[in-house]
């Protein structure tokens, strides 16, 4: 028992060494999004933009609810009108702001860890797809050749029988 287990481990190690040195990115295990903290909330000024002049209230039926967040210290401004709901727009704006602040605090890297991981995940998916299609065509090619040989052999058999 012990022997087999040890050999199994040995095999696994070998396989690990043989595979790509770059760890694969998993979509469900991405680095976390930058968090919007309570301190940030205090540093931010929130505004709701509804297109200024003209009649309001019952006279007009505007569906847009644009939320604008301004980080007073750095002057970063983000807006959001992704959804029709003001509440979810406020949430999304806060996520965006946290991302922008993380980028501001870490200007060397062009993007944050999560975006980078996501980009790698996309590339990885593309590579996997390429590999899959290559394998598929190789298999098709093989099948075709074996069929050809089969028919050749059959022809040869017929000729021989004649």
């Amino acid at each position, binding site marked *: 028992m012990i022997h087999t287990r040890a050999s199994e481990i040995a095999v696994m190690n070998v396989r690990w060494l043989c595979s790509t040195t770059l760890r694969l990115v998993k979509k469900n295990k991405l680095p976390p999004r930058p968090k919007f903290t309570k301190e940030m909330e205090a540093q931010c000024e929130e*505004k*709701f933009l*509804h297109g*200024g002049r003209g*009649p*309001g*209230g*019952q*006279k*007009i*039926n*505007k*569906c*847009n*609810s644009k939320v604008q967040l301004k980080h007073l210290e750095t002057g970063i401004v983000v807006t959001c*009108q*992704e*959804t*029709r*709901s*003001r*509440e*979810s727009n406020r949430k999304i704006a806060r996520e965006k702001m946290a991302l922008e602040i993380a980028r501001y605090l870490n200007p060397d890297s062009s993007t944050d860890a999560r975006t980078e991981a996501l980009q790698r995940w996309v590339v990885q998916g593309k590579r996997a797809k390429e590999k899959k299609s290559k394998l598929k065509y190789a298999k098709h090619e093989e099948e075709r050749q074996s069929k050809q040989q089969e028919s050749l052999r059959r022809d040869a058999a017929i000729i021989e029988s004649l």
Partner: protein
Amino acid sequence: MPRISPAMIRKVASYDPLLGLLLPVCRTAEAARQELHWIRNEGASVQRACALRARSVPLQYVLGSQPFGELEILCKRNVLIPRWETEEWASELAARWQTSRVTAPTVVDLCTGTGCVALLLKRALPRAQVTAIDCSPFAIALVTKNLHHNDIRDVTVLQRDILRDDRPAIAADLVVCNPPYIPRDAFVRDVTTSVKMYEPRLALVADKEFYTNLCDVWLRHTRSFVYEIGDISQAHFVADRISATTWSVGIRRDSNGKPRVVYGFKTDDVQLNKLYDGFGYLVR
């Protein structure tokens, strides 16, 4: 309103034919693009929705709902669509009552329409006794649907015409109301086509009937009130009619800077003084 040139429509439609349908009603390419994005996200039949929008049917009637705070309010013809201004003051009001010491207030929502304000308050204050009143049978049916849709129970729904009904008013800690407040001449002048064509006139056109009704009937039965207004003159009307010795009256502006709410509370009530502190500015 300036005309949108056919060349402009053609140009926008070259990106997406549906945008061409939306442009005349949305007025700008940016707004049209935004609206198409929302329609697509909603998962309804996109082409049908855009065709209806091209005929100025309000987006909320097309998609069937409107977000209101954390609620999703169903919208149907013959009932007024909740506005963002109402959402704004109702959310603020709910948050203020939530932090106050009064945990189980009695709330009456007049002219409730879709029931949005009543439902929002009930969601924020689960122990409150909320009564929603409207005179329209369409509204009453929709309130019941909305209660179910948002999984809220224990809201009393009454069909009553508060201007003509002589049954006694209900004693309450808070009376909220978004009454019709557009005077007849302003209705012709200011109201946008979509609202004029598709939203119920019953919920839009009135002069000062409901503010008179507030002063004459509901004030005797409540400790505080919050009424939406369309014009500052309506707030002054209420302030002038109310006894200055027992009531404090204030006006609250919406985030567009327009006077949107007239509110009041008993001056000698310490709790309410604290609760409404900073909600708007006092005029009396």
